[in-house]
Structures are given as structure tokens and as C-alpha cells.
């Protein structure tokens, strides 16, 4: 593993033609397939689409056909939720192969995953998938595990991937590396880019009492390939509130402010509106996307910044 770490940026190449436009995109939901195709050119506020890779790893069928039809109209980004790059032990080789097959099929503009884990190895030698994105302890051991897996994923795909900062609800006593530092070290060692989820920064900052602006200030523009925005909700336990990243409501004003702050600092970057529960009418999603587009259009790229190549 250590020999790989010395060859930083192993799969970097020139900026590819299939990178996403610096515009707003929306998370594609089955409820909206038909309307997006039927309204077509009349929808100006969809710059691109993102899907959860795992939902399209089937052999065939209507869902894959919808996605293929939509791929002809819009750039598509594959956002993984199940590779579990933070799991101790080997990656699921079969799952990685399925991702590579899907990436080839849809000619994805971006491929991304999370700084988290979802699978615990079980006694049978396989893994139990918990359907949750769980924060890692930020230790040297986790760094080795995570970087090794990002490199394996990038090698299999033959391209750079983006890694997203998580929303978290707990921290570990033995964590020794601050999260932004851990993320930057992953990028440095593996050559991956960063998917900056502004809502996740807000949620985690609230839950753990750190300063969201200070976190964002540590992320350099040349590493950020994509931004995510979503709504969150609040759960009250024993009279105290904890924020839960449930993607089930509009982006709140405070997160829009953080987003404006981020775009002013980093320049225009492809931005996704995520909405995964209580799915609204397409027009509600488009309204959120138009809001992001206005902020992007008002931004000027900072000088001497080339955004991360994702290819």
C-alpha cells in the first residue's frame, strides 16, 4: 500500500470533455423520468442529472432504459452509496465490477463516493450492508484503509473519483485527525477530487459544534469537482436537537448563505440539488436548481484556478 501512496495522482489526466457543466443539476428520481423526457428542451434549469449508482446496477429493465434515454439528453453523474470505502478489509470485487460496467454504459461525467463506511465484515467472510453512511474514526489506520480503497476504485475505473464529506451524528474518542485534514490527505495520497456537500458541513458543524466557515475555508478550489445541496431535518432527543441529513425538504436559508460563501470563494462549480425522501413535484426541484444557477451565474472564477479534472 505504501508504494502506491508515493505515486500521488496516479490517474490524473487532461481535463476530459465529459466533465459536468458548472451549472445546477438535479438528483434523478423514478417519479420524474417521464416528465423530464416529455418536457425536454422546455426545462432549462437542468444542467445535468445525478443518480445513485446502486439503483442502476441491474442487468436490464425499464429503469436502465429510462436512464439510457436520459443520458442522451443530459450529462449524468454516478453517485455511489454502497462501495463502503471505509470498511476494514477488501472491497467487494463484484460490486466494483458492477460499478465499472455501469460507468461504461452511461459514459458518466463524474463518479463519486462518500468518506464513510456502510458494510461490516461478517463471520461468513462477506459483509453486512447497513444502508447507512457512517462516519469513520479519523486515524492513521482509517487513512490507510480509505486511501487504499480509493486507489483501487480509481484503478478499476481508470479515472479520478470524487469523495464527499459526510453528515455525521457521532465522533470517536480515538479520532486524532480533523475531518477536513483527513479529506485533504485522502486527496493528496490517492489523487481523488472532493465532492463538497455544503449541507453536510452545516449538519455536522451543528451536531459537533465546529465552525462551518472555518471547515469550508480549508478546502482548496482546485480539488472541488462538485457541490451538493440538500435539505435536512431535526430530531429532538431529551429536549436537544440533532440535525439529520434526510434530503427530504428544501435547502434552508443558512445553507444557501454558506453556498454563496463557498461559490464566491471557489468560483462556479457543478452543483447538485439532492432530494431523496418526500420527493416533491419536478417543478419544486427545478426551482431549487434555478436558485443555485442564479448564484453560479453571478460568480466569477477566481484567477489561476483550474477546477479539478474528473475523468
Amino acid at each position, binding site marked *: 500500500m505504501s508504494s502506491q501512496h508515493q505515486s500521488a495522482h496516479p490517474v490524473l489526466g487532461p481535463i476530459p470533455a465529459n466533465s459536468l457543466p458548472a451549472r445546477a443539476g438535479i438528483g434523478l428520481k423514478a417519479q420524474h423520468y417521464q416528465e423530464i*423526457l416529455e418536457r425536454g428542451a422546455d426545462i432549462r434549469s437542468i444542467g445535468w442529472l445525478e443518480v445513485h449508482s446502486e439503483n442502476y446496477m441491474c442487468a436490464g429493465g425499464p429503469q436502465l432504459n429510462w436512464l439510457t434515454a436520459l443520458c442522451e439528453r443530459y450529462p449524468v453523474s454516478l*453517485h455511489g452509496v454502497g462501495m463502503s470505502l471505509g470498511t476494514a478489509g477488501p472491497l467487494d470485487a463484484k460490486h466494483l465490477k458492477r460499478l465499472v460496467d455501469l460507468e461504461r454504459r452511461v459514459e458518466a461525467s463524474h463518479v463519486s463516493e462518500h468518506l464513510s463506511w456502510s458494510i461490516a465484515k461478517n463471520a461468513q467472510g462477506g459483509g453486512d450492508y447497513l444502508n*447507512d453512511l457512517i462516519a469513520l474514526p479519523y486515524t492513521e489506520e482509517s487513512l490507510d484503509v480509505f486511501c487504499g480503497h480509493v486507489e483501487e476504485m480509481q484503478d478499476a475505473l481508470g479515472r479520478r473519483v470524487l469523495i464527499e464529506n459526510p453528515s455525521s451524528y457521532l465522533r470517536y474518542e480515538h479520532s486524532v485527525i480533523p475531518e477536513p485534514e483527513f479529506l485533504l490527505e485522502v486527496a493528496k495520497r490517492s489523487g481523488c477530487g472532493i465532492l463538497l456537500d455544503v449541507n453536510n458541513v452545516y449538519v455536522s458543524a451543528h451536531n459537533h459544534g465546529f465552525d462551518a466557515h472555518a471547515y469550508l475555508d480549508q478546502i482548496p478550489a482546485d480539488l472541488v469537482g462538485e457541490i451538493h445541496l440538500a435539505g435536512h431535518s431535526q430530531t429532538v432527543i431529551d429536549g436537544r436537537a440533532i440535525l439529520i441529513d434526510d434530503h427530504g425538504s428544501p435547502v434552508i436559508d443558512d445553507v444557501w448563505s454558506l453556498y454563496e460563501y463557498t461559490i464566491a470563494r471557489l468560483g462556479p462549480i457543478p452543483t447538485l440539488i439532492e432530494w431523496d425522501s418526500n420527493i416533491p413535484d419536478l417543478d419544486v426541484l427545478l426551482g431549487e436548481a434555478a436558485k443555485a444557477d442564479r448564484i453560479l451565474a453571478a460568480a466569477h472564477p477566481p484567477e489561476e484556478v483550474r477546477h479539478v479534472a474528473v475523468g
Partner: protein
Amino acid sequence: MSVKTITKAPVLAAAVAVALSAAAMHEAQAAEMEKCYGISKAGHNDCQTANSSCAGTAKMDNQKDAFIAVPKGTCAKIVGGSTTSG
């Protein structure tokens, strides 16, 4: 008619001929229902297949393991049989 005679080629030929003409009619009807992109309208089930998601949930799991209530759904619509209970 004996078991042997029914499988003789002419009988099978007649059965297949009947099957093919009936099948052809069914196919013609199905073709009329086809939509653009070779993808038909999302059926009642299509929008709700099990999806992996990167979002958590604010709902809490407060139930105890051991308790299972009696079914209280639409199984009341199923009647008859020797063992049915409402």
C-alpha cells in the same frame, strides 16, 4: 385417444398452429401499447422499486423486537378457505 397417438406430429402441429395464431393476436395488441423510446409509461409499480439512497432518516426506531401485532391490513378482503382469519 391414447397417450401415444396424441403426441404424433400432426397433433402437435395442430396444437402449435393454434398456439401461434393466438400468440400473434396477443402480440399485435401489445405492440399498439408501445410508447416512445420503447419504454412504456411507468406502471403502478415502477416508481417504487427498492432504492439505495445516501440520505438518513429522522424517524426513530423505538419499537421493541418481540412484539408482533396481528395483521391489520387489507387481508380482511380475503375470504373463504379453511384457515382464514380476519
